[in-house]
C-alpha cells in the first residue's frame, strides 16, 4: 500500500516537474498585466496578439524557419548517402566515421559555437548568416544519419539487387526501391532536425550579428530590454507548435520508432 502511494507520489512529482514550467508559461502568457509575472494579473489574450506585431520577432522567426528547413534539408542531403554507405558497405573506417558524424552532439554547443566564431567567422570573414547555416546543418547531421540508418537497418539490401536484375541501374535502384521505403525515416529525421534547429540556443548565441538573430536568441535579447509577458506568449505558442508537430508525427509516422 505504501509502495503504491510512493510510486503515485513520484509520478505526480515527475509530471509536475515536466509540465509545471509549461503551465506557468501559459498562465503568464495569458496575463492582463504589463510585466512578466506568475500568478498572472487577470486574464487576456492581448500579449498573444502583441507577439505578431513585434518586428524583430517576425524577422528572427523567418531566420529560424529558414535555418530549420534548409539546414535540415542540407543535413539530409549529406546524411542520407552517409547512412546508406555505412549500412551497405563494409567501410574500413566505419566506427571512425560514426564518431566524426556524431561529434556535434557530443561536443557542448558552447564550444562548437565558439570554435565556429573563432576559426570560421572571424578569420575567413564568413557572414554570420552563412556560419549559422553551416552550424545548424552540422548539428542536425548526426540526427539525420542516425534516424535514416535506423530505417535502412530494417530494409533488406536484396531488393536493390532484385531491381537491378529487373533492368534498373544501381542509382535507379536507390531512387526506385530504397528511397520510397525509407521515406518515413527521412520524414522523421526532418521533423527531429527541424525541432532541434529551431530550439537551438548555445551555438546560435555565438553566431549573431546586427539584425541576424535566431528566434530563441532574439527572445533572450528582448527579455533583457523589455520585461513584458509577450515573451511568455511567444514561448507558449512555440511550445504548442512543437507539441502539434510531434503529435502529428507520432500519429502518422510512428515517430518514436525512429528516435
Amino acid at each position, binding site marked *: 500500500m505504501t509502495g503504491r502511494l510512493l510510486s503515485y507520489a513520484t509520478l505526480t512529482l515527475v509530471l509536475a516537474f515536466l509540465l509545471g514550467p509549461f503551465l506557468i508559461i501559459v498562465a503568464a502568457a495569458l496575463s492582463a498585466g504589463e510585466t512578466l509575472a506568475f500568478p498572472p494579473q487577470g486574464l487576456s489574450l492581448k500579449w498573444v496578439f502583441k507577439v505578431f506585431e513585434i518586428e524583430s520577432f517576425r524577422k528572427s522567426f523567418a531566420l529560424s524557419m529558414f535555418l530549420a528547413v534548409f539546414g535540415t534539408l542540407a543535413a539530409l542531403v549529406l546524411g542520407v548517402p552517409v547512412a546508406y554507405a555505412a549500412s551497405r558497405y563494409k567501410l574500413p573506417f566505419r566506427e571512425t566515421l560514426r564518431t566524426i558524424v556524431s561529434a556535434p552532439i557530443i561536443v557542448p554547443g558552447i564550444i562548437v559555437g565558439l570554435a565556429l566564431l573563432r576559426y570560421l567567422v572571424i578569420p575567413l570573414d564568413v557572414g554570420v548568416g552563412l556560419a549559422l547555416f553551416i552550424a545548424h546543418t552540422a548539428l542536425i547531421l548526426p540526427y539525420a544519419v542516425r534516424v535514416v540508418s535506423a530505417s535502412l537497418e530494417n530494409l*533488406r539490401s536484396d*531488393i536493390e539487387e532484385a531491381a537491378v536484375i*529487373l*533492368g534498373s541501374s544501381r542509382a535507379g535502384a536507390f531512387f526506385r526501391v530504397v528511397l520510397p521505403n525509407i521515406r518515413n525515416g527521412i520524414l522523421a529525421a526532418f521533423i527531429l532536425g527541424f525541432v532541434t534547429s529551431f530550439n537551438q540556443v548555445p551555438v546560435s548565441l555565438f553566431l549573431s550579428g546586427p539584425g541576424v538573430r535566431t528566434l530563441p536568441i532574439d527572445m533572450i535579447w528582448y527579455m533583457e530590454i523589455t520585461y513584458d509577458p509577450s515573451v511568455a506568449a511567444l514561448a507558449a505558442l512555440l511550445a504548442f507548435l512543437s507539441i502539434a508537430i510531434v503529435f502529428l508525427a507520432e500519429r502518422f509516422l510512428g515517430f518514436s520508432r525512429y528516435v
Partner: protein
Amino acid sequence: MSDLTYLSLKDVTLAYGKSVAVDRLSLDITRGELIALLGPSGCGKTTTMRAITGLMRPAAGRITLDGADITYLPANKRQVGLVFQSYALFPHLNVFENVAFGLRLKRLDGKTLDTRVDGGLDLVGLSHLTNRKPAELSGGQQQRVALARSLVMDPKVLLLDEPLSNLDARLRLEMRTELQRVQRESGVTMVFVTHDQSEALALADRIVVMKDGYIEQLGTPEDVYDRPSTRFVADFVGFENIFAVENGKLKTADGEVPLNPGAPIEGTVKGLAWRPSKVTLGSGSFSGIVKGSSFAGHAREYLLDSALGPIKAEQPVPHDAYAIGDRIAFDLAPEHAARLNRME
C-alpha cells in the same frame, strides 16, 4: 560445348576476396531444360547463381548465354531472371506494381504492360490479389509474386534460389507441381537451387550435385539416385553401406575382405556402395548380429554388427522379423552396388 548448349559456364571461379567459393566450375545447359543445383549449405549454389545473373563477377572463366559472351555484361542487361531465396519483393509496391516493375523500366505502353502483368499473375494464380502489399501475403503467395515478377520479363534463363525451402511441408509439395507446370507452360530454361535431394529428383531433367565449390556429379535423376559416382553423392542420396575397394576387395577396419564372385569389379572402381534395401538378408557369405531393428512403414530396418563393420539393411514388411541378438547371414552382391570412382 555442343550445338545445343544455351547457357554455358566454362571454368568459372568465384571468390569473396581471397576465399574461393566456386572453383573452375563448368556446366552446359540446353534450352528449355530444368536443372537442379543440389548440395549442402555453403557449397556455392547461391554464389553460382549470382555469377549467372551478373551480380558477381567471376575471378576467372567464361559465361555464355544464347551464343553471346555475357561474362562481363552488367546484371541489368542480361535477361536472366532470379527468384531470391528471400523473394526480395518491394515492400512499398502492391502485387501488380511488383510484377510490373521491370516492364515499366522497358517503357511499354499501358495496355501491353497491363496485359503482360495480368498474364503473369494469371500464370501463378494470383489475379485476385493485385492490390495487396507484400506484407499482407503468405509465404507461398509472396513466392508466386516473385516468380511472376521474373517470368513477365521473358528471361532467357530463370534462376530460383531455394524456391521451396521457406515454405511449410504441404505448400512445398504444391509449389513443386506448380513450378513444373509453369516451366512446361512457359518453356523457360530454369535452374533451381535446393539442398533437398527429393526436390531435385522429382523436378529436374538433370541434377548438378555440388560440394565445396565444385561439381561432384552431373546427371539425370536416375543417374544420381541409382548410380552415384562418388562417395559424397552416394552418401547424399542414401547409400548407407559404403566401402573403399582395393585389389578387388573391400577395405574394412579389420583388413581386406573378398567379395563373392559375381560381377567382376573393374580396376577403376575405388569404392562400392549399397542401399539398405540392396543388402540380401537371410543368406550369403557374411554374417552379423542384429543390434537394432526399427519399423519404417514400408520396411523394417536392421542394424547389423559384422566383420565388415556396421551394416544397414532393410526388408519389406511383412516378413519374419529378426530379433535383436540374432546372428543372421547376409550378402553384398556386386551387381547391386553403385560403383564409386572417388572416395574422398
